[in-house]
């Protein structure tokens, strides 16, 4: 039997592109680092592009095991046909992740003795195949179990079945008999979906296709459907979950922010000044901060990490997605102008796409209901942004310098307190990491200033 990863939607191959994004500069500080999805071991990533009742759902896949063992079962609210399924490009997930990840920015203090100096750095800004494989001989068995194969087709490296069922026990039995090793108790969770006339989108890897393709990992699956239900089923995925699960949902709409309708949506702490050492451990800092916030909020809220009009960013953790990349992410309302009018430059202008990045860490006891969403007209931008204010460390020779040092040391103390408060880390452990701006260089043996430069 194949171990099944129910709703194991997953993360992009972040390592492929990590580090390639050039540092960008903007008015809101110089971008230095980000806390992207690769921080979390088992973070599912989902893209939902939605306009009115139309939805394109992208299930990213960071499945780490053997491709032959992979299987996915997702309840979908309507029947899905072959042409509503696509295999997407994993790079799009990486791009969305980088664009929207919590970011670390830095500012530089001016020389208090020459306050007119100001440093300004230059800104830098699927092929589908089909091979229906009906299994005529098994039809009787399906009927006796009340399971109907509504559609069966292959797309890219995936073999896909769309199932409908009359009874949850029949569906559970059918899945077991067909080598899907679903956890005990699955039928109890399957039943509500069956009663609500959901279909089941079941995907396995077609090994021949997978071996033939040049891809080393499974690509994201995309499903287009039309339904007034705006939700994400998370209950099935909890069946074989160990501990808390992380889910990052990127929701793209033409109107504005999306919020969770049946849980609180809480913006993650942002725009706080943190010590300089956070640059080296920004990932660890963000992870600890997220965990602390999660616990403070009693583990029962969804966190907002980013909400922004996708035609710009400030500061940019990565360049805004091009219209073509947005289309690959499922945005279907931009119009089809690929390759059309060549006189128009491919500039990312206003695109009428608004992104909401929600980060949900959930467990069965605190998230009993599937996630419901609602689109709002809220276009107020929001980002998880952490600021390093770099002290001026050059030579200072004026009266203002003493006051400045004192001011900076107070500031450094406050920054330290902020980190302790946000992460729960021990202050005593952090003290030595701070590069304190000390009293005047009363070095016992001052070296001539020219000695270092020729390195003799």
């Amino acid at each position: 039997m194949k171990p099944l990863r129910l709703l194991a939607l997953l993360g992009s191959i972040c390592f492929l592109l990590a580090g390639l994004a050039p540092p960008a500069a903007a008015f809101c500080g110089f971008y230095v680092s980000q806390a992207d999805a690769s921080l979390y071991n088992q973070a599912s990533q989902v893209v939902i592009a939605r306009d009115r009742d139309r939805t394109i759902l992208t299930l990213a896949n960071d499945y780490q095991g053997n491709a032959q063992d992979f299987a996915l079962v997702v309840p979908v609210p309507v029947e899905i046909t072959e042409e509503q399924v696509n295999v997407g490009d994993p790079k799009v997930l990486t791009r969305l992740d980088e664009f929207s990840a919590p970011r670390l920015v830095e500012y530089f203090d001016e020389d208090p003795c020459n306050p007119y100096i100001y440093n300004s750095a230059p800104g830098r800004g699927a092929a589908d195949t089909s091979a229906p494989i009906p299994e005529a001989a098994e039809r009787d068995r399906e009927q006796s179990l009340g399971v109907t194969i509504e559609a069966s087709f292959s797309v890219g490296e995936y073999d896909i079945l769309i199932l409908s069922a009359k009874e949850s026990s029949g569906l559970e039995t059918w899945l077991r008999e067909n080598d899907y090793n679903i956890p005990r108790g699955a039928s109890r969770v399957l039943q509500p979906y069956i009663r609500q006339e959901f279909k089941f989108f079941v995907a396995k890897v077609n090994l021949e296709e997978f071996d033939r393709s040049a891809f080393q990992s499974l690509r994201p699956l995309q499903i287009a459907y039309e339904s007034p239900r705006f939700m994400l089923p998370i209950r099935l995925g909890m069946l074989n979950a160990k501990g808390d699960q992380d889910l990052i949902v990127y929701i793209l709409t033409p109107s504005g922010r999306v919020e969770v309708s049946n849980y609180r949506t809480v913006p993650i702490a942002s725009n706080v000044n943190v010590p300089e050492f956070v640059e080296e451990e920004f990932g660890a800092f963000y992870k600890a901060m997220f965990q602390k916030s999660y616990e403070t909020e009693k583990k029962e809220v969804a966190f907002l990490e980013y909400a922004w009009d996708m035609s710009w960013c400030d500061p940019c953790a990565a360049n805004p997605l091009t219209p073509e990349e947005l289309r690959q992410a499922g945005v279907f309302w931009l119009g089809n102008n690929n390759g059309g009018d060549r006189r128009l430059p491919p500039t990312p202008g206003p695109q009428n796409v608004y992104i909401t990045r929600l980060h949900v860490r959930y467990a069965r006891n605190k998230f009993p209901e599937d996630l419901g969403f609602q689109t709002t007209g809220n276009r107020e931008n929001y980002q998880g942004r952490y600021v390093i204010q770099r002290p001026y460390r050059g030579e200072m020779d004026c009266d203002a310098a003493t006051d400045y040092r004192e001011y900076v040391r107070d500031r450094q103390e406050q920054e330290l307190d902020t980190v302790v408060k946000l992460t729960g880390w021990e202050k005593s452990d952090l003290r030595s990491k701070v590069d304190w701006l000390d009293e005047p260089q009363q070095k016992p043996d001052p070296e001539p200033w020219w000695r270092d430069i020729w390195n003799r």
Partner: protein
Amino acid sequence: MFKDARDAQIAFLGMFLVLGISTRDWTIQPGLMAAIAASCLLTQWLAQVVIPKLQGQVIKLWQLPPSWKSALITALGLCLLLRGNHYWSMALAGVVAIASKFLLRVGNKHFFNPANFGIIVALTLTPDAWVSPGQWGTQAWYLLLFLGAGGLVLKWVGRWETSAAFLCTYAGLEAVRYAWLGWTADVYLHKLMSGSLLLFALFMVTDPRSIPNARQARVVWAVLVAWLTFLLQEEFFLTTGMFWALFVLAPLTPVLDRIWSAPQFQFTASKESTPLTT
């Protein structure tokens, strides 16, 4: 403690607002709340002071409108529930909420809940207004606080059966649905333990001035609102189902008042003639 029930209601709604803003990360800004309050109170003043004066009544132009407390309650209700990005969206909600009391009347009684009317108009006519059903979360102590405060006000104005009929019907319908679907009890409880639902049931569905006068009529009416709320939420997946249900069924009030007649509710205690205040 309070001279009339409106004072208690203002105190409680004000407390919820302070609580929400300080502990629940709401996005509402002071400027937007000011826009709501100003538009509500000014419209009330226009309707109760300026227009009567223009019509020749002897009235001082700079006096408080007689029902300024009701306008403030409407403003607080809108601040608690309505969200938006622009001043004019919020002001529109405030103006139409109060104006509905004077323009949409049968006999001498308005039948739309003013705040609810303002919310529906803002949701429909502006691009940016929305309500956040999940904004209170499901923590028990908020629910207990709402129940306690709501219970006090309802006892005072004698409309507790309206809340009870609404909540029982809604909870009953959801119970049947969740049991039929096969969800466990905790899923059902999570659905019901919503701060927004309780606030709606205790403070909006029970507005004594706009709902039916007779007790039987109120029970029938509350059951209908609960049923429609359930239908809109579960069959049409409308997260704002309860506001739409109340809006759609509000015009039924004059009809029910005709079927079951009873004296109209007055806030001022001296003229009180409603059944449960004695």
